[in-house]
Every structure is written in C-alpha cells, then in structure tokens.
C-alpha cells in the first residue's frame, strides 16, 4: 500500500471518503482499501471487506458477461464505465454507476484497480416504477391524465387519452383547451369550477365543486364521460371513458322518436310550417351569403327558435353548428352548403310522408283552426296574469272558443245524400231525408265524429226497417218510406231523434242473436226489460243479416255509433213500434266542457304507457285495473301538468321494470346523472310519456305547462287524493307492476 500513501491521496480521502464510494483492489480483485461511504452502503464492516474478493458484493441479477467485459477492459489497461447492481450484506441491493481504472506503479505496470461509484439506486427505482406505471397506463381502455393548478397536463397519461381527445400529444397543454376546445360554456364552467376548487381548503367544498364540473362531453364524434379525483399533491386526476358505441343504438331510437314528433307537429301546424319553410328558403338563397355577421346571427337565432317549435331537429342542429362557427369566426361556405342540404333533407322527409302538395302554399285566405287556438292561448295567458278583469276576459275567451263550433244542422246535412244513395242502391222507395232543427244550435268539432257514424242508423233503417214495396202495399202502409231526423235543445241537452216508418225490430230475433253471441242467457233474458233487449243491437259483432255488402251486415256499425256517443257522454233510447216504425232518441249534454285539456291528456297517458311498455320495451302487460289502495312506504315520481285544470301524474314502477327502462335510455344525455335510482328513472319515464302525450293535443298544448319531477311518498299523495278527484291504475306486467296515479287538483290547491 506504500504506493498510495502520498499526502495528496490521503488528504482527498479524508475529505471525500464519507461521500465517495471508493475501493481499491489488487490485480486479482482482492479488496485492499474501501472508503467510509463504501462501508456504509455495503452494510459490511471495513474488516469484513479488506482482504476479501470484490465478488463479495456481486448481485446474482447481474449477468456474468458484464464482469467478463469489465475484466477484459481493465486488464488491458483501459477504464471501464457502467451501471452495476450490488448486493448488500443483508441481501438488499443498491445500484451504482461505476468507473474502474487500472492503478500503475512508476514503471507503468498495473498493480491494482481503483473504482469510484455513484449511488444511483433511487434513480433506478424511479425509472422502474415509471415504466411499470406507463405499461399499465398504455394498456387500459380508459384515459387517465393529471393536471396542475395552472391547468397544465402532466407528462404521464394513458395512451387512450389521445384517442378520446383526438390529439397527438397532450403533455404540457392546457387541459381546458384540450377537453372543451369548441364548447365555450363547458370550458367556462370547467375553468371557474377548478379555480374555485384550487382556492378553497375545505375538502367538503372541494367535493361540491367536483360534483358540479362537466361529467360528459361530446367532441370530434366521441362521447366520453369525465370523472375527477383530487390527488395528494393537489393536482387533479381525470378519468375519461369513451361511451360512443354504447350510446349509438340508443340515440338511433331517440332519433326515430324525434322524427315522429316532427311529423306530428308539422301536420298539426301546417300553415306555420309552410310559411316558415318558405321564408327560410329565401333566407338560404339571399341573406345567408350577404348579411353582415351580427344581423345573420340574429336571424339564425330567430329561425332556430321557430324550427324548434316545429321540432325540425336536424335543421336546428345544423343552424346551431353554423352559429357556433359564426361565434368563433370559422364559418365557411361548406357550413352554408351543409345547412342547405340538411334543411332540404328535412323537407324531403316531410314531403315523403305527407305528399308533394303538402308544403305548397295556398292562395286563399282562411281562418284556420290553429289561428283561433293561438288567440285562445294568448287570451288564456292574459287571464292568468289578469287580476281584476277576469270575468270579462273569460267572456271573450268563450266567444273565441265558439268560433270553432259548427252548426249541428250542417253536420247532419251530409246524410241527405247518403240516404238517397243507399235507398237507390237497395231499391227502396223513400222520401228525401227530412232534417228538422235550428241552424243556430252550435256544437264543438268533436261532435262530428258522432254525426258521421249516424250513417249506420240510416242504412239500418233503409235496409232492415223500410219494407219492400209489395209488403208495404199488403199492409196498407204508405208506399213510400220516410226517415225523419229531428233535434232540439232541452234542459241543456241536445235531443236528437231519428225515426222511420218501417217494420221495427223483431225482438225475438234480437234475443236469439244475443244468446248466440253469449251476451245473455235464456234464463237471464226473461228478466230483461224490453229496452234492455233492444240495446243489444249496439253490441259489437251484432248483425241481423248473413250477407255482407257495402252498406250493411258487418255488425260493427251500430257499435261505433254507441262508442262515439259515449265519447260525448250521451245516451240512447229505442222506441220500437212493431210494423209501424222505429225511433232512436239520443240525449247528449250540450255544454260539455271540451277544454279539459289536462284531463284528456290524463286519458291519453294510459294508452301511451301501454304502448311504451309493449312497443318500446317489449314487455307483456297481463292485466290493468283501477284500485283505491296506494302503496305504503313507496316513493312516487310526480309531475304536475297545469292547464285549464291542474293534474298530478304520479308513477311507481317495480325494480325489474325500472331496470328494463334503464336499459332503454340510460345513455341518454341527461340519464348519466340518474344514478339508476328508482325514483329518478320513473320520473324520467313519466317525463317521456307526458312529453309524448301533450303534443297530441296541439290546440291546447301551448297553454299546458309541465312541472319539474318531484318525488312524493304515499302520505302526501293520500292527502291530495282525499281532497281531489283521483284515479289509481294498477298494471301487471311480466316484469312486475306499474302504478299510475292521476289526481285532478281543485283550483284551490
């Protein structure tokens, strides 16, 4: 060792031995000297090391080829550099970056080797960890990334972020820009929420802000969910998940639904549709190219509103797109062409459904029913706001409503021709139909459905009532048959009487047929009154003849009269004078309130519910009945519909049904927040059903307002039920039960 005992070396070793891992060996690799740092890291004592082979710290992980290379290098007199994993005394390891140099005497002969090492264990561990994490990140479907207080995206993120966000590289970019590049509102909400979140120290408040950040976004054809987590270093971790494929199927169904809505609205608002479409065509031709941006924005916005009313969704979306581009100054000719194309596709769909002529403007000026409806609804709004002058306004409203009424006499007049035609076809000799009544008796348009069905009464009279000429002569009757239709007002009822001078009804034949159809039995029929027997002729499938022709015998005719009569809350009485004649007396309430929109909708929603279950969810309905007992300890999703009447709709579905419904629309834009909670899903279903039912009544739905869904339990609903008229419908399906509770609120509620 005397060779290295010169002052300089000793001095340096004293100075740096603590810090530098240093060792010297002889030419065979036997340790001759170790620094303090070497002793410390190896966990051996100096005595244990000196005189031992350098192999004492060799780690089994290191391939022998490395040491072979090392020895070849240094024994040939050169310096070797490399990274080596070493073994500690107690089996742990450490990594070093080593430089091994030959040590020579004055003659230049190699007498040993000196090694200087630097501890790189931490670095090695970090690299390993990083690789492991990156491997995980690159092989998972979800997008993971983190960003800091300055909204800068950190270096480590999962590969899939790039696909979801449609980017090549996102490290060091601004997270808000990357996530919401085209959506100013979302970006603003996101930035505001995150800033507040970074500012507050309260974990609870942080959680609140997290829950309010955007959780779903659509960009570049990809729909993804966003979940947030605050990391210990206060950075935020984002989890992005692509849900485009999951939603495609659902959105297709949604799209079809929207198209249906469009057709319904356009059919019922024809005039408005024609006018709007014409003016938009002009707009596309001239204004779109020539108008300055500000005016163009305003016009587009107005059009968007108008098209929304007609539910022309494709055009609306396209206008919305061009609006966004206008805002960002990125609007181009392609966007304008696209708008025109989409619009023409919508028009094409309309004319495909309704025929080419549907959208051609007419030159005659008519007061359309829907114009009266507009006036009506505006009046309704006035009445809602008005406090002092309500009675006067109601009077005007009534007058406006009566504009839609029609003369009953005119409605019946069409039958003059029908009667003449049938008589001619059947070779019966009869006088022209005589209609007696005031032309001033006006009835609502609904009445028409009933008066149309009267054709069956007339044809019955002609075919079965009025005898052939020979028979009439034989019985000394007037050779000509006669049918008279009389109507008048009596105690707020319309009394409509249709009589003939034919042979009347053979009640024995009616009884025989009724027994045949299982409408009654031989025993029961003995107890029936004459009138009850006669009423059998209004039953379904009741036909007195065997041959079926254009005018008679299908057996559905009189049943349809009865059906329409019931729609008007009317009743019928039959006066049968055998061989002299037959008369029907219809009694129909005159002042039936036809404006009970909400109540009418209440009836429709039941049909819509059945359709939804059966057609959309393919669920079989076993049984439907009304009941009085509300379920206890259950929560009903409730929506209030306000119109002339206020109606509460409450809905309860069994878990299995809810699950079915969830499958149907869980990927809908808002459904992501439903949490699958039973009440929320039922509320959403109810919303959809009401949404489908309300537009069915175009003349009134401007006046109708749907409230926000609320969860009410049975105790609250019971109090409502006690004070109001209510109807609880129970439906049994193959996947559990459904309950629909309809409560008509008194105005005082």
């Amino acid at each position, binding site marked *: 060792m005397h060779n290295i005992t010169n002052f300089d070396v000793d001095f340096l070793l004293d100075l740096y031995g603590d810090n530098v891992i240093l060792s010297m060996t002889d030419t065979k690799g036997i340790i001759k000297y170790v620094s303090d740092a070497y002793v410390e890291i190896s966990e051996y004592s100096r005595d244990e090391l000196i005189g031992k082979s350098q192999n004492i710290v060799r780690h089994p992980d290191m391939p022998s080829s490395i040491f072979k290379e090392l020895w070849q290098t240094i024994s040939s007199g050169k310096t070797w550099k490399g990274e080596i994993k070493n073994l500690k005394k107690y089996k742990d390891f450490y990594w070093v970056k080593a430089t091994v140099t030959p040590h020579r005497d004055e003659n230049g002969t190699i007498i040993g080797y000196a090694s200087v090492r630097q501890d790189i264990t931490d670095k090695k561990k970090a690299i390993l960890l990083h690789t492991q994490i990156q491997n995980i990140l690159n092989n998972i479907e979800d997008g993971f990334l983190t960003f800091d207080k300055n909204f800068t995206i950190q270096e480590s993120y999962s590969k899939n972020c790039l696909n979801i966000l449609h980017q090549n590289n996102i490290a060091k970019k601004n997270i808000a820009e990357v996530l919401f590049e085209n959506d100013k509102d979302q970006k603003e909400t996101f930035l505001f929420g995150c800033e507040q979140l970074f500012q507050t120290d309260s974990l609870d408040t942080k959680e609140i802000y997290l829950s309010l950040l955007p959780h779903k976004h659509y960009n570049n054809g990809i729909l993804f969910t966003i979940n947030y987590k605050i990391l210990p270093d206060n950075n935020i971790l984002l989890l992005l998940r692509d849900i485009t494929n999951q939603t495609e199927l659902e959105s297709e169904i949604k799209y079809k639904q929207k198209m249906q809505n469009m057709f319904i609205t356009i059919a019922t608002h024809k005039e408005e549709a024609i006018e709007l479409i014409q003016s938009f065509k002009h707009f596309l031709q001239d204004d779109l190219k020539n108008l300055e941006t500000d005016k163009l924005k305003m016009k587009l916005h107005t059009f968007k509103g108008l098209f929304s009313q007609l539910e022309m969704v494709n055009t609306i979306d396209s206008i919305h797109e061009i609006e966004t581009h206008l805002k960002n100054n990125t609007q181009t000719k392609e966007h304008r062409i696209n708008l025109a194309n989409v619009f023409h596709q919508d028009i094409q769909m309309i004319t495909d459904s309704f025929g080419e002529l549907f959208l051609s403007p007419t030159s005659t000026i008519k007061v359309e029913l829907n114009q009266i409806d507009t006036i009506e609804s505006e009046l309704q709004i006035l009445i809602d706001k008005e406090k002092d002058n309500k009675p006067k306004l109601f009077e005007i409203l009534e007058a406006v409503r009566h504009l839609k009424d029609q003369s009953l006499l005119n409605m019946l007049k069409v039958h003059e021709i029908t009667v003449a035609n049938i008589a001619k076809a059947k070779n019966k000799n009869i006088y022209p139909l005589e209609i007696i009544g005031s032309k001033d008796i006006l009835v609502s348009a609904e009445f028409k459905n009933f008066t149309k069905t009267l054709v069956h009464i007339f044809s019955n009279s002609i075919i079965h009532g009025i005898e052939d000429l020979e028979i009439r002569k034989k019985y000394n009757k007037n050779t000509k048959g006669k049918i008279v239709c009389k109507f008048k007002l009596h105690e707020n009822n319309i009394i409509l009487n249709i009589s003939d001078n034919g042979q009347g009804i053979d009640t024995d034949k009616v009884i025989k047929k009724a027994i045949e159809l299982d409408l009654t039995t031989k025993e029961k029929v003995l107890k029936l009154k004459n009138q009850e027997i006669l009423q059998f002729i209004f039953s379904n499938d009741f036909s007195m003849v065997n041959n079926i022709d254009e005018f008679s015998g299908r057996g559905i005719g009189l049943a349809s009269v009865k059906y329409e009569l019931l729609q008007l809350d009317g009743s019928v009485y039959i006066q049968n004078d055998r061989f002299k004649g037959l008369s029907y007396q219809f009694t129909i309430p005159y002042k039936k309130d036809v404006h009970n929109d909400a109540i009418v909708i209440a009836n429709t929603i039941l049909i819509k519910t059945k359709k939804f279950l059966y057609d959309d969810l393919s669920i079989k309905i076993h049984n439907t009945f009304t009941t009085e007992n509300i379920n206890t300890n259950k929560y009903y999703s409730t929506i209030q519909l306000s119109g002339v009447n206020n109606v509460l709709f409450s809905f309860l579905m069994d878990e299995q049904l809810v699950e079915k419904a969830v499958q149907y629309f869980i990927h809908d834009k808002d459904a992501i927040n439903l949490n699958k909670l039973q009440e929320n899903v039922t509320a959403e279903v109810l919303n959809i059903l009401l949404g489908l039912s309300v537009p069915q009544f175009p003349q009134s739905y401007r006046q109708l307002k749907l409230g926000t869904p*609320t969860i009410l339990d049975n105790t609250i609903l019971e109090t409502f039920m006690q004070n109001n008229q209510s109807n609880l419908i129970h439906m049994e399906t193959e996947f559990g039960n459904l309950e629909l509770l309809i409560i008509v609120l008194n105005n005082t509620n």
Partner: protein
Amino acid sequence: MANILIVDDAEIIRISISRYMEQLGHNIIANATNGDEAILQYKEYSPDLVLMDISMPEINGVKDGIDSLCKIMKINPLAKVVMVTSQGEQRLVMEAISKGAKGYILKPVSKEKLKNILDKLDLS
C-alpha cells in the same frame, strides 16, 4: 331539530319539502315564494337552514336565488343556505357555492337527498 326556511316559487316543491322535513323531525319555520320574502323571513326568524330555489322569477329587483343568498350571507356570514337546482344549472351553483352556499340539491327533491344534506351540515 332544525328550524327551516323554504324558498321556492313552486308550491308543489314547497309542500313536498315541508312534508319530508317534518317526517325527518324538523320544523318549517317559514315559507317564501320569492327572494324579497326570503330576506324578510330570514331577518324575522333566523332559521338554522335555508333551502333556496336557485332560479326564481325576478321580483322587485331581487334577481334570483343567488342575489338573495348574497343578501342573507351579509345579514349572517355563518348562515346555512342550500340551493335547490335543476340539471343544467351547474355554473350557477358553482357561483352560489363561491358566494357561501353550503351545498345544493338536484331536483327532483326526495327525502333521501334532504337527509343527506342535513347530515352533511350536522343538522340532523
């Protein structure tokens, strides 16, 4: 038992919140249908909790739920106000939270949601 002030322009929401709160063992000390009323009621009763609809029609210059919230926070910086909100009002809610609201409930309001918020605010 907490004394609660309900502020909402929709009666059905007020009724249902009242009933649930009573079922949860709390006392509805007052109701208000707009921001102005809310502030008067707050001054009079100093309730333990205010449930406030975030978007109410503008009356007498009191713009909406947030305006009323700010005024209540001025009267009592420790006031507990919870906003009642609908889908799509996230930005408004954030503003309310930054102005001192202690939380929010998303409509439809249910007993569970009310219980959760009461638990969070240590009022149950």
